[in-house]
């Protein structure tokens, strides 16, 4: 009875339990993996077995497959034999001469395990989807920092030239003016170079001569200018990240990008943890990713489940009338999972997915063109603050509601910060359950973008907006950074425009705070 046994340190051939021949691995991790991936050639072993001309029982399926390729007569061992090998492995290793004694075996196996685990960690660290996730998170992080810094810049330089704040919406343009120096030294040329339209240049020149601002010392000015420089640098970096995410998403996840857009796609990818994980999620999970808080509450209390989390940022979803959004989010999520699966298998772009989605969304638009009576009911004011689903919630007491606004805003931030940590380990994320609850609501993408404003202000059509990127005055339009979004898909922008007016109305109605 000949048997061929694969161990971590080499392959041994036994004849009736006695060692016949041993082929040790010189680089165990590499060679073992080659066998497992059925990529080994195993010339020596094959030649030896071929010359022995016997039937062999083999301890490992991959090894079996390789040997079969070379038409060696072999079969897989019985369960009981495999069990025995499992149990006696250290002894087998010693008998094969792969290690000198049992202690040595343990040491070598441990080394092997460490090397194998390390190589897996290294391999995973190289996967492009993890890099995309880092990029999109950096982008969101930069927005947060730059928004804060931009407000500060306006406040500080505003002591010197308060009128500027109301005229220049674009933080990019504002920072460029600050870099030019004191009010007195601002010339028409500077305004022109900063890219302002003529009408604005006129206004600026007029106003800078009549400013009510105070003087600013050189040392203060130079610090303010450094801040302005930072803001501009962030703008550059942001642009780079945006382009990078876009390009990488098109490359590694073209279908997901087609369905979700590169930015929303990347954010959902980030929530899922990896493209593979995203592909294995149920569509219903994708639909509410980013609305975990509302989801858990609905599971516990039986209240309405959220209709969309991050997907709220999707152009098709937020451009739609309120009562259609849940349905569209579901359609988008369903296609997104399929898209992610196609992407995992690297099949390239499949146009029909997007076409089908468009058809479906049109259908929804027609079928639910008018809201039902239920849809028409005005949402409770609580929702205006928190805004995560379309129906009034049970069990939302008045108190909670009042507190809600602030807590929620805070929670949003914390979520961002926590983002990485959570992803680090499935467990930590789960354990975060309680903590999350303290953190407040975390479901509405708008929520945490409130302070936001590192993007263009869609409302104000100042000339410099087209330069893209930075948004104007963060203080001014706290509410709707979401529209600023990424310009991933020009087609979608039309949708966005509708949404802009829509949400502006909303903001006016509900007030800013």
């Amino acid at each position: 009875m000949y048997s061929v046994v694969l161990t971590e340190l080499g392959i041994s051939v036994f004849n009736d339990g006695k060692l016949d021949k041993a082929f040790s691995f010189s680089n165990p991790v590499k060679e073992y993996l080659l066998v497992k991936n059925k990529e080994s050639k195993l010339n020596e072993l094959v030649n030896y077995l071929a010359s022995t001309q016997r039937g062999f029982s083999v301890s490992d399926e991959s090894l079996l497959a390789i040997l079969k390729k070379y038409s060696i007569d072999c079969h897989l061992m019985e369960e009981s034999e495999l069990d025995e090998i499992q149990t006696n492995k250290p002894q087998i290793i010693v008998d094969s001469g792969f290690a000198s004694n049992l202690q040595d075996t343990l040491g070598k196996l441990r080394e092997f395990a460490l090397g194998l685990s390390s190589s897996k960690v290294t391999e995973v660290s190289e996967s492009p989807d993890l890099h995309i996730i880092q990029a999109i998170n950096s982008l969101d992080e930069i927005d947060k920092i730059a928004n804060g810094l931009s407000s500060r810049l306006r406040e500080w330089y505003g002591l010197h030239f308060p009128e500027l704040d109301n005229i220049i919406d674009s933080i990019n343009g504002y920072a460029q003016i600050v870099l030019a120096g004191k009010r007195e030294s601002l010339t028409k040329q500077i305004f022109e170079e900063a890219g302002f339209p003529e009408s604005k240049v006129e206004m600026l020149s007029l106003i800078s001569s009549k400013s009510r601002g105070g003087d600013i010392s050189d040392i203060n000015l130079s610090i303010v200018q450094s801040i302005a420089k930072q803001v501009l640098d962030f703008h550059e970096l942001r642009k780079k990240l945006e382009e990078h995410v876009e390009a990488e998403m098109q490359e590694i996840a073209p279908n997901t990008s087609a369905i979700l857009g590169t930015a929303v796609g990347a954010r959902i990818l980030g929530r899922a943890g990896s493209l593979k994980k995203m592909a294995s999620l149920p569509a219903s999970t994708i639909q509410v990713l980013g609305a975990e808080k509302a989801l858990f509450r609905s599971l516990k209390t039986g209240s309405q489940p959220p209709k969309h989390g991050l997907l709220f940022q999707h152009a098709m979803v937020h451009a739609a009338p309120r009562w259609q959004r849940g349905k569209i989010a579901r359609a988008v999520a369903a296609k997104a999972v399929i898209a992610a699966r196609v992407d995992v298998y690297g099949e390239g772009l499949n146009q029909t997915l997007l076409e089908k989605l468009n058809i479906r969304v049109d259908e929804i638009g027609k079928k639910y063109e008018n809201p039902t009576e239920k849809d028409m009911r005005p949402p409770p004011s609580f929702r205006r603050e928190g805004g995560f689903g379309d129906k009034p919630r049970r069990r939302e007491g008045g108190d909670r509601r009042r507190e809600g606004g602030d807590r929620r805003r805070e929670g949003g931030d914390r979520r961002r910060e926590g983002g990485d940590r959570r992803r680090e380990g499935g467990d930590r994320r789960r354990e975060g359950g309680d903590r999350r609850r303290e953190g407040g609501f975390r479901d509405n993408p708008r929520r945490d973008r409130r302070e936001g404003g590192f993007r263009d202000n869609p409302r104000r059509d100042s000339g410099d907006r087209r330069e893209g990127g930075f948004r104007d005055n963060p203080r001014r339009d706290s509410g709707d950074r979401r529209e600023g979004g990424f310009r991933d898909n020009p087609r979608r922008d039309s949708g966005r425009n509708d949404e802009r007016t829509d949400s502006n109305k909303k903001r006016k109605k509900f007030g800013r705070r």
Partner: protein
Amino acid sequence: MALEIIQEEIVEGMMKEQIQIKREKSLEDDNQSFFWIKSEGQKKLATENMVPGNQVYKEKLIIKKNIEYRLWDPFRSKLAAAIMNDLEYFPFENKSTVLYLGASTGTTVSHISDIVGSNGIVFAVEHASRVARDFLDRVATFRKNIVAILQDARKPKEYFSVFGKVDVVYVDIAQPDQTQIAMDNCEMYLKKGGYFFLVIKTRSIDVTKAPKRIVEEEIERLKPRFEVLQTIDLHPYDKDHAMVIAKFNH
């Protein structure tokens, strides 16, 4: 550099505190396993540091009579929490072999490694590569009795480098189907009569059900093959967590 600083702190701390060490005997025999150390006026859990000077999760190190101990934080490790909550069975001892599923960054694994010592083995399975990175860097690289297995516990057949049967299987993977996964692993790797520790995180099984019911249901599943010895609520160290200790009858 960091190491030096840490050691200074220990020496300082040692002189300031009256440290008492009481040997805690394991139930099976006279092997020492974990210790109670008086620190800051409180009785605290500790293990003897197998790799002196090495901290795993910023836990406090205390030197007494030239032996270094690592405090074992029940808020960070569920096994420690179980001990605090009157765990009656402690089969982890010198020379034990343990299969540990859900090693994470290695907090608990490191203490078990301290306990089983250089003649014991901990096969530590973890599949998330981000936490595994920390686990390798902080724990597995320094401890000669840990065999790191970066694989999915759902496929016990494919683990590399596990051999023989182990004395204890410890499972903390927070998966909805963890009981099944755990039982499959026991089937393959646990000795007859071996011990089985299962951490049940009720919220990751079903958020809608009452925690108590979930624990009961999970225990029910174990019954055909295991004798359930003790169930411990890990409150206040962990919310909605229970530890079930069972013996494998097979």
